[in-house]
């Protein structure tokens, strides 16, 4: 890589990070409204935000929802990936297309479609609706991650286990499972993050009782007059950095699968 390329890369990296630093700076401003550059220094906005019951409630909703979406998409996604990679399934390409299409169809539209669908079906259980919507958008990530690790795993190991007398289930439990565990871990992490950050699906399906954090944030930036929204943003950015650290530690460079 030439020095010119390297310099260009460094500039771009700075531009990527810089905007995220702005709310961090504004969050400590000791003024009752937001201003740049910040004036004075205080941490009180952090305490104010953390004590906010609505923040706590929304965070709890989002955590429950992300856990449900991750578990649900694993339950559906792992067998699906195994079936697609290790078995001769009729219409394999069509199935793969269906599984990946929630990534292509605009989420906004899928959310609206689900809202209409559930109201026609007379379903009123909001958490269920949100969870189903989130599983739809998390499933492609799980299937793709698990498929990738299945493709990388050596199928001869499974044959060896079968020859030595293991039945299909035992083979899965003792051999396949260990080989695809990295794929399952990364799939679960991505599913959790995708659900935790989702706005366009939740926007249509949420209600007062189940009001996920991203929606609350959107209301909050329109409602909070003081730097407490900047404090909340800073906390969210820190959370993202922690997640990146965890992902890097667990998965290394496989982070690229997220978008690849």
């Amino acid at each position, binding site marked *: 890589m030439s020095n010119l390329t390297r310099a260009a890369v460094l500039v771009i990296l700075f531009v990527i990070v810089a905007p995220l630093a702005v709310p961090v700076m504004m969050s400590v401003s000791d003024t*009752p*409204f*937001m*201003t740049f550059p910040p004036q004075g220094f205080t941490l009180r906005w952090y305490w104010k935000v953390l004590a906010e019951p*609505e923040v706590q409630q929304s965070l709890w909703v989002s955590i429950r929802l992300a856990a449900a979406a991750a578990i649900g998409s694993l339950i559906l996604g792992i067998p699906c990936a195994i079936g697609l990679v290790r078995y001769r399934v009729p219409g394999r390409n069509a199935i793969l297309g269906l599984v990946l299409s929630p990534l292509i169809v605009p989420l906004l539209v899928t959310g609206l479609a689900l809202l209409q669908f559930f*109201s026609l079906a*007379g379903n*009123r259980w909001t958490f269920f609706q949100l969870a189903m919507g989130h599983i739809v958008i998390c499933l492609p990530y799980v299937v793709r991650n698990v498929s990738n690790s299945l493709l990388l795993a050596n199928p001869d190991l499974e044959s060896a286990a079968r020859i030595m007398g293991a039945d299909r289930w035992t083979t899965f439990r003792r051999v396949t499972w260990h080989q695809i565990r990295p794929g399952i871990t990364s799939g679960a992490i991505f599913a959790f993050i995708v659900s935790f950050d989702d706005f366009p699906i939740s926007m249509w399906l949420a*209600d*007062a*009782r189940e009001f996920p954090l991203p929606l609350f944030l959107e*209301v909050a*930036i*329109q*409602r909070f*007059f003081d730097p407490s929204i900047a404090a909340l943003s800073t906390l969210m950015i820190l959370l993202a950095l922690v997640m990146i650290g965890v992902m890097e530690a667990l998965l290394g460079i496989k982070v690229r699968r997220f978008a690849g």
Partner: protein
Amino acid sequence: MTIKLNRRTFGKLALGAGVAAPFAFTRNAWAQGRTITIGIWGGSQGEFIKREVIPAFEAEFGCTVLAEEGATLANVAKLRATASDPRFSVMFVDDVVVGLCKEEGLTEELPAADMPALENLYPEFLYEGGYGTALGISLGGVFHNTGITPPETYAELWDEKWAGKIKLVSPNNTPAMFFLIVAAAVKSGKPFAEAQYLVDDSFDKVAELRPNVQNVYDSGIQASNEVAQGQADVGLIEYSKYVYPYTDQGAPVTMTYPAEGAFAGTNCQVLVKNAPERDLAVAFMNRMLEPSVQKPLAEYALIAPPISGLDLDEKTLGYVAYPQSEMQARGLFTPDWTMINAKRAEWTERLNQIFAA
């Protein structure tokens, strides 16, 4: 646990609850464990209801009140979507749609007998023959950064010295209708009452304002925050309830009411037709009108109460038009909502064509 009561007994109990001491816990055991969902607004008003009114009501009745925040039109949309199987019991909406909701059969008449607090309500704030009551009246006008000289007339705002310095309310919000009336009034030179029927022919005037508009905002609070920061000089048109609480906290933003006149922004409550837990819903609506709620609500959110006989503190009186005589003295204008509701979708599209195309 749910204790079933028949209608007649519950009415008396609810009435009892209204006049009894606020913490008559056992008296309201009939509501124990029940849940109602209400639609409310954002802002200080919503904040106060969420923080103060609902917890006290829940404690007293042993029930749960879920408050879902949303703008008037979104709240009406939710009512329509759930009309066959209502989810909401009480909905807070602007006066603009009370008649609409009645016509569409989304709401039902308030049971006056079960709502003793109606007694103190100024009669003009009981709508559509009992299909809704006001909860608070704020003033519709222009908000501006305290560092600038505010416009004396609306007409001034078309001057090019305001280029890029105005924030305009989104057609998703009711005050956008006030703005259309202002534009018609500025074009025709007629008072609001006549100008409102000339809006159809005034969109050229609306379009002329475009160079002066910095953006079209959805949230009055965010817009006044940005005006306080100096991002823009003025915002039009917004309810004072979204601005004054921050003026009061020392933010450099306040309201002004140009010479053409001020608008009445009336927030109302309606009872949803076939509401779940109707008895509890009525009790809640009654509670909203009680002086014990109205006085602190007015003083917190800086809106005028729709009921008589309150002694508001000095500071609040500086921000609101109260009592009724003061409202009349200020000549607050309330548009012909029936006409506007019929036109609203069309006007929204035309506003979008000017500002969003």
